[in-house]
């Protein structure tokens, strides 16, 4: 373990630039001069070995950074499109919307059994679904449907082309009302409670405005009960 190796390890793993005197604190064997000497050694070694990185001296101290001439490769690495696939939840949400459109978030959540606001946004961002209208009733919840891009991407002329075999779940094949009991409203709240979904990803601060969203759920379930689209 020689001084320049210790200096290299510290410079590499530090998340901030370091002055020589700070690096020297890493070990009793080091002092400022030794650190400066080590940095000169490292620079020579990096030059000689034609490394893609170098020790840079900034106002705040030393840091190992990629040489600027490699910037175009980094940029290309970042921007070459990565193949993208829909996640399981996104596939499920898209399937429900494709077959039951126009459909609101509450109904999607009812069928999936978990909250779906985030996944709906993902599929909207992908350009496969869009807001196609609003339901009646208080709050007038948004209704989603598939886009032209959806048809284009999956090779359909129109929505008539979607296969509707016998095996398709009834909930997708027929537009049966999702909630048909008089106690629909309270039932809905109960069903919506999914401890697992909760377990997945509760982030602090996101639970603001709960009463609003709860209200809209109720509204939407009313739409469903009454309209039964």
């Amino acid at each position, binding site marked *: 373990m020689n001084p320049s190796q210790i200096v290299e390890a510290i410079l590499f793993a*530090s998340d901030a630039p370091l002055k020589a005197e700070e690096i020297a604190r890493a070990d009793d064997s080091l002092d400022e001069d030794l650190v400066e000497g080590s940095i000169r050694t490292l620079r020579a070694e990096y030059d000689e070995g034609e490394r893609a990185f170098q020790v840079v001296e900034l106002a705040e101290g030393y840091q190992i950074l990629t040489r600027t001439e490699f910037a175009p490769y980094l940029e290309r690495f*970042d*921007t070459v499109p990565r193949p*993208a696939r*829909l996640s399981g939840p996104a596939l*499920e949400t898209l*399937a*429900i919307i494709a077959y039951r459109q126009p459909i609101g978030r509450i109904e999607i959540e009812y069928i999936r059994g978990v909250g779906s606001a985030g996944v709906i946004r993902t599929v909207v961002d992908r350009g496969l679904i869009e807001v196609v209208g609003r339901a009646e009733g208080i709050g007038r919840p948004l209704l989603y449907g598939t886009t032209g891009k959806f048809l284009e991407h999956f090779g359909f002329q129109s929505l008539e082309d979607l296969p509707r075999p016998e095996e*398709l*779940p009834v909930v997708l094949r027929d537009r049966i009302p999702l909630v048909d009991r008089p106690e629909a409203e309270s039932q809905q709240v109960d069903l919506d409670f999914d401890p697992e979904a909760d377990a997945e990803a509760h982030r602090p601060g996101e639970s603001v405005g709960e009463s609003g969203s709860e209200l809209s759920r109720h509204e939407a379930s009313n739409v469903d009960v009454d309209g039964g689209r």
Partner: protein
Amino acid sequence: MAVTSPLQDEGFFVVEIERFQGPLDLLLHLIRRQDIDVFDIPIAKITDQFLVAIRGIQARDLDNAGEFLEMAAALVRIKAQMLLPRRDEEEEEDPRAELVRRLLEYEQIREITLRLAASEAERARRFGKGYVEPRHRPPLLDAPLETVWSEVFETALAITVPEPRDMEHRILLRAVPLEEKIDLILLTLGRVARVEFNKLVSPWRGRLHGVMTFLAGLELSRRRRVRLRQVRPFAELWLYRWEETSEEPTVDGGQED
């Protein structure tokens, strides 16, 4: 009580029980530290030790007190089953079998957990690049979508609407102090000479009340304040006011003194 383990000291447990991940961990500890053959667990002894170990757990407001109590109830049930004459030795599984499976499985998981902790520690000895230059990342939309229709369609075929959840599952478990149940039993037996177990439990919903009432019954039987009596297996369990003259067999507790 014929508890002979060093675990009898309650003070020891007040300190110790927090250390255990849960009832399986505690049970495994009791078994392993006494070199007990896990395939032939002396269930009466272990049950007693377990009950001693968790005594007072309610009062200390542990997060997982309910789970220890559930295990206590399961042990007591197995213990009771062990006392029954086995009608058909061939077909009936040892009442302890499932517990043994769980214990062994848990022990294996615990071993893996130790290995994972070691791997984690080893991995933590390496450090990545601390500073990575911030770069602009392209928005998700730029990436071509590779998902094909058959994936969407297969997902559609698999969709089912979930059944309404069983309301029973939504009842929140609340702390049920043992003392409360002890008082309830003593109060009741102050008025009548005997009472059905179910009568004591029926006013409450939630299985924990049953468990706690049962444990209270066991505790009082240990203190020789009540006798537990059951005419035949799975028949109604009765709690009797303790009379010095009573000699009849009990299902649990009283006879071991």
